[in-house]
């Protein structure tokens, strides 16, 4: 009988500090595809221009052993400074932003606006027949809002993927 602790899957949000250099994203993505790991979401942007550091946030899932492997594999890439498992290390805030275009007239249009208000989505562009909503929140919240927009004229969605950071005074640099 396989030990359930060894087969149970969990999600992990992993933050990676890397040298901001050509090819780094290809190294990370190549690692995931080459070794058959899941990527549910991946975001990257420079966070310290002076020190040439970028931060990558990866949402993945796997058994505990696979997630340990993913972290160890990331950590041994030469341009990687630091790998933190935000899911494991304690409470963290995870946010995603989406731009959501809804096209329509009449009652649907009003309903979309009312729901946007309830979800605290902002209108960042409007015409007589369309809205672009900007919304920030957990992935679940975005999913729920997008599902509601579908019958109301959902035309297009652009999402950033998850960014995350630990709660409290603890820092990835410490």
């Amino acid at each position: 009988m396989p030990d359930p602790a060894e087969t149970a899957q969990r999600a992990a949000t992993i933050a990676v500090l890397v040298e901001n250099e050509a090819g780094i994203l290809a190294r990370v993505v190549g690692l995931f595809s080459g070794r058959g790991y899941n990527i549910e979401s991946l975001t990257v942007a420079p966070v310290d221009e002076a020190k040439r550091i970028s931060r990558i946030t990866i949402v993945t899932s796997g058994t505990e052993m696979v997630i340990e492997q993913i972290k160890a594999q990331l950590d041994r890439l030469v341009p990687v400074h630091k790998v933190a498992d935000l899911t494991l290390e304690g409470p963290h805030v995870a946010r995603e932003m989406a731009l959501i275009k809804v096209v329509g007239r009449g009652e649907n249009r009003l309903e979309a606006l009312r729901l946007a208000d309830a979800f605290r989505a902002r209108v960042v562009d409007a015409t007589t027949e369309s809205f672009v909503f900007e919304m920030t929140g957990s992935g679940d919240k975005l999913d729920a809002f997008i599902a509601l927009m579908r019958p109301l004229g959902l035309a297009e969605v652009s999402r950033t993927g998850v960014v995350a950071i630990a709660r409290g005074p603890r820092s990835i640099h410490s």
Partner: protein
Amino acid sequence: MSATPAPAAADARLMTGAEIVLRALKEQGVEVIFGYPGGAVLPLYDALFQQNAIRHVLVRHEQAAVHAAEGYARSTGKVGVVLVTSGPGATNAVTGLVDALMDSVPVVCLTGQVPTHLIGNDAFQEADTTGITRPATKHNYLVKDIRRLAATVHEAFYVARSGRPGPVVIDLPKDILIGKGPYTDPPAEPHRSYRPQTEPDAEAIRRAVALLKRAERPVVYAGGGVINSGPEASRLLTEFVRMTGMPCTTTLMALGAFPASDPQFLGMLGMHGLYEANLAMHGCDVMLNVGARFDDRVTGSLAHFSPGSRKIHADIDPSSINKNVKVDVAIVGDAKRVLAALIEAWKADPTPQDKAALTRWWRQIDEWRARDCLRYRQEGRIIKPQHAVKRLYEITKELGRDTIITTEVGQHQMWAAQFFGFERPNRWLTSGGLGTMGYGLPAAVGAQIAHPDALVIDIAGEASILMNIQEMGTLAQYRLPVKVFVLNNEYMGMVRQWQELLHGGRYSESYSAALPDFVKLAESFGAVGLRAETADDLDRVIREMLAADRAVIADIHVDKEENCFPMIPSGAPHNQMILGRDEEGGAAGVTDEGKVLV
């Protein structure tokens, strides 16, 4: 830096990119480069021509350049260096790079590239070398700014040799090689992001020793990491095993890390490992793994691997730990530091060892040994391949020369591992992880270049040797007296064995048809060609081969249908080993799950 230098002085300090590369190589202690020229690297070849500090060895194929660098690196502990041109030069090198990656061999490979302004234009002999080699290397670089050139070369050497060693590619656009820039010394400060842990955690060491002291049936399982760590690690391993009285087995990659003649040596473990080694792994209660990676060729069925043991794993690469096998104590560190710390902690821990239990354990092991799992019968005229290797070993031992063995891949490789004894590290060069046919001859080139006075022998199969046979030309050009000892069974024997055991004896495409006349082939390259067709010829041919002052191909005609045993069929547990033909029924029991494994 003080005042801005006058322009003329500044200019005088500028060098061409090619000169910068060579100066950085010299600074890194490079004595020899294995390479092959082409348009994109002509500036480097020009600079090489105008100096004498670094020797260039011209191979006949870029794959061979990398294997030669591996042979050089594995036999010396230094970084092997390769120089190839862009496009086909770089793509030909890829197999060698992956081989070095899998076996953790430190190599720096310089590849030419089209000039920076042409990159991405499908220029002549352009290939996306950094893209292609990203998963084939430990790390790679494309140099786009000559001011970073020297620093990149220094960094490449640091990355190749530190932590878990591996191959590093530096892609060099031609305009960078021709342009002028400053040379910079290796940096004094540590690397910004890559700082592998070499010193083991004291608490982990203490926990390991606590387990080992209380062990009743311990086993030490040493791997290639002990070789990577340098000869001191092998010395410390031997010291530790002897002071604790424990049995020791090694992987294919670690032969020589522990003296083969030591009574505590159980031999190699794994798929073609010894019965006693595998059963000791299966039955132990505490396992100490130093620098081995629980490879599938070693563990067999993971679900049944050493079920009753507490496992300690020491490895410099955290990604090797808990990858395949979950362990109880993880020690991250360099093997020699780990072993030194274990020895110290063992002495410091007052817990007495259970000597009675250890004696019982050895009695059990001796019973397993008594099965004499490597026995074979050499009778009649047909040479048994095992006998050929055994005689080669015995006769070279009589000679007492420093001997380095390389191999190709297949049955002959396994027989070499089983029947040739190694007392010291760095004398056994084989392609383990990738299993690259064609590795042995170029690796022998590299080893012989590094050790001109050593006896270097490639134990080969007739199929594998043809994969890099062109290196006979390199042997001729540099008068390298490498001996190629071909166990010629007229089959891709390892393939034939699997077909016999797992595919109903349907020998699909595994017969080595249309073989060359190896004697004439040797002679055409200025080497000596010898042939042994019967058991009576064997010793004479071996002696003639060893006495020759030139390269030799000895074509040893061996039993065509001999299988390599013991064998743990893919996916089977350690205690379901097949010991010989009489037992081949055992392989009929291979499950479909086992059949999908390689």
